[in-house]
């Protein structure tokens, strides 16, 4: 927590990154510590998934308004990717990608509450059938029917979770902890466990019920000197496609925004506590030595940037999420600010560790070579989707936002303008950049096995 006596200050995105500058030699500069010995047999796989956590939500990245010691510890034990992007900043589409390694336009889940196309195996089905993994899932699924839907294949379903995080996340932890103890006693087949937490998604309800959850005045006056500062791009509304321009107008005062941020970060800390207990169980059972852990989120959170709350938006606060990998053979203490990573890469990475191919050719990549400090050709651009026909093309330096049928685009130089405040689309020289990014998008689209129903 920030010192209650200190004045809140604005966060600068550069600070987040610079805070890890020493380690930020990243993988391009070589491992910061020699990788531990690689596992000999198929490792266990643990995917810890949370909901609506933006990259800046970790105290390890310098955010003074939140304390996430357990997530920080996980990041210190592994590699944290700083250019990790959601495939779509909404729950169901992003989760369909995490579970299949395919983009939402391929899974058919281009909005909430659609089913994954039936001919795409999910992570559990694939690793169970192809590599003999025991597969279990606990918590939020957010595709129709939830994880207990009989149509969901491939996972043993652990009882727990499914409600709001404040109420249910500890249940996910306990169910997963019991599962780990049971697996530790057997030590036979490797397992894949998905621990899917709801937090910090509870913040969504602040917008659904502003009449009850938002107050005209600070409801707890003792918090007056503990409220986070507003981000520097809070009032920035760069012109662009109509779908990118949906500021939240429900708050009338800065104090309301800041209390919203205060509540959000407490939810992040609740998540951190649960993840900490799960990681302790992994240590206590001795399973940590042969378990690859991936921690990530489905999408980020507006957090007052560009006047936004929730997600949906093409800005980095919605798109960028933590992506941490830890376990045997993984370079510890590294922060990779170079490689563009996506939610689709969970499938590729786990398939790589399990020693099986992807279910079918796709753009999913394994980050394992990056984790082990091996040279590898990596993608130089990445596409994400938003609000149906919106697309975001990321390259090392720039980002182009387009929406089919809308002539307006957004072009950001993320090196010069990391808070995305200046749309360069009308600037001299932008036309070439826009054209080159459109060309990349066209090539990406040609590789999509588009779901017939989308």
């Amino acid at each position, binding site marked *: 927590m920030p010192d209650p006596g200190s004045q809140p200050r604005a966060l600068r995105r550069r600070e987040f990154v610079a805070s890890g500058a020493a380690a930020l030699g990243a993988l391009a500069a070589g491992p910061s510590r020699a990788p531990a010995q690689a596992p000999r047999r198929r490792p266990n796989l643990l995917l810890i998934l949370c909901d609506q956590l933006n990259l800046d939500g970790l105290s390890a990245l310098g955010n003074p308004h939140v304390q996430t010691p357990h997530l920080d510890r996980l990041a210190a034990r592994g590699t944290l990717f700083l250019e990790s992007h959601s495939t779509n900043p909404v729950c169901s589409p992003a989760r369909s990608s995490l579970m299949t390694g395919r983009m939402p336009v391929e899974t058919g889940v281009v909005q909430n509450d659609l089913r994954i196309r039936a001919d795409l195996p999910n992570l559990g089905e694939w690793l169970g059938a192809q590599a003999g993994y025991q597969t279990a899932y606990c918590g939020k699924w957010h595709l129709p029917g939830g994880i207990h839907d009989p149509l969901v294949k491939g996972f043993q*379903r652990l009882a727990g979770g499914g409600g709001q995080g404040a109420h249910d996340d500890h249940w996910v932890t306990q169910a997963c902890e019991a599962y780990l103890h*049971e697996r530790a006693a057997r030590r036979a087949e490797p397992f894949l466990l998905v621990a899917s937490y709801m937090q910090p998604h509870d913040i969504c*309800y602040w917008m659904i019920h502003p009449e009850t959850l938002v107050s005209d005045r600070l409801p707890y006056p003792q918090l007056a000197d503990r409220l986070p500062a507003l981000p520097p791009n809070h009032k920035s509304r760069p012109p662009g496609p109509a779908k990118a321009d949906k500021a939240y107008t429900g708050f009338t005062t800065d104090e309301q925004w800041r209390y919203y941020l205060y*509540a959000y970060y*407490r939810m992040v800390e609740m998540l951190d*506590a649960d993840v900490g207990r799960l990681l302790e169980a992994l240590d206590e059972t001795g399973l940590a030595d042969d378990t690859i852990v991936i921690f990530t989120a489905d999408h980020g959170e507006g957090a007052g940037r560009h006047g936004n709350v929730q997600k949906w938006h093409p800005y980095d606060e919605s798109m960028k999420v933590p992506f941490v990998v830890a376990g045997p053979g993984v370079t510890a203490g590294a922060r990779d600010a170079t490689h563009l990573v996506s939610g689709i890469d969970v499938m590729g990475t786990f398939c790589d560790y399990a020693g099986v191919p992807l279910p079918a050719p796709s753009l999913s990549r394994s980050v394992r070579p990056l984790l082990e400090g091996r040279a590898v050709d990596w993608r130089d651009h990445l596409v994400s989707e938003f609000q149906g026909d919106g697309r975001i093309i990321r390259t090392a330096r720039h980002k182009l936002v387009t929406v089919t049928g809308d002539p307006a685009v957004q072009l950001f130089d993320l090196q010069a303008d990391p808070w995305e405040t200046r749309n360069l689309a009308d600037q001299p020289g932008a036309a070439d950049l826009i054209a080159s990014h459109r060309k990349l998008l066209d090539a990406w689209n040609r590789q999509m096995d588009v779901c017939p129903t989308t």
Partner: protein
Amino acid sequence: MPATQARDHFSLRHLERALDGFTVPTGPFDPAGAWSQRWELFEYGFRLNRHGALRLDRAPLADGARLTVALRKFRVGGTLRCEGEVECAADALATVRRWRLATVALDPAGQEVPGTRLAESGERRGDELLIRGPAGERRVAVRGPVTCDFSLFDAVQRLPAGEPAQGLTFSLLDRLARRLKPGQSLVRGEAATLELGGRRVWREQATPLAAGTVYRPVTAIEGAVSVNLTAREQVGPGVLPTTWWTDAQGRLLVMTAGLIGWVANPAAQV
């Protein structure tokens, strides 16, 4: 003090429906004595729903108290049951001395799901918590008072109305006494007279206008009684601001934190 309704208080607004039909407790109550109380758990998602219940039985000891815990949380796909005991001091925060809690998942038919039973016990030893779980012992360094989520239900009922306004600071063993969250504070909040109990009815409200009278339906509570309440507010890392509402005799009637709320209900099924 003018009578108010739940909607007039930020921490109670989202629980307004949960307080419909609330049974206002009557009769003597000694928060420092032996008692058995139940609260019902509400969750405010798209709608306000019931999702569980908690029963605490307090037995005074020579220099503290033993709380017997029975908790159920339910959800599609199953139920979480937690049972055990917390032994705590008779101090202001009911600081924990030792505890043992076991949780298990039940399937929709109420049968125990194999492999889901977890038992943990612990005790305070000086500047450490010694915690015993299925994988053995672990030690957690602590400083200052440590209380837990269950013992706070006891503590807030025994706090005198005139406790220091600057409040109490402590570490919280949260999430069924499993996660330590230092840096908590509990301060006295507002005092209020609240209309509680009764039933919600529709009434017609007449508004005279120049062109005639407009009638519109409004809800009102009939048969409510006025109850004097004191709020205590807990803030700190890892918890949403929490408000504990107790009546003049100290009974905890409502606790709220973000989307959840516990509402006293002697008929709650545990």
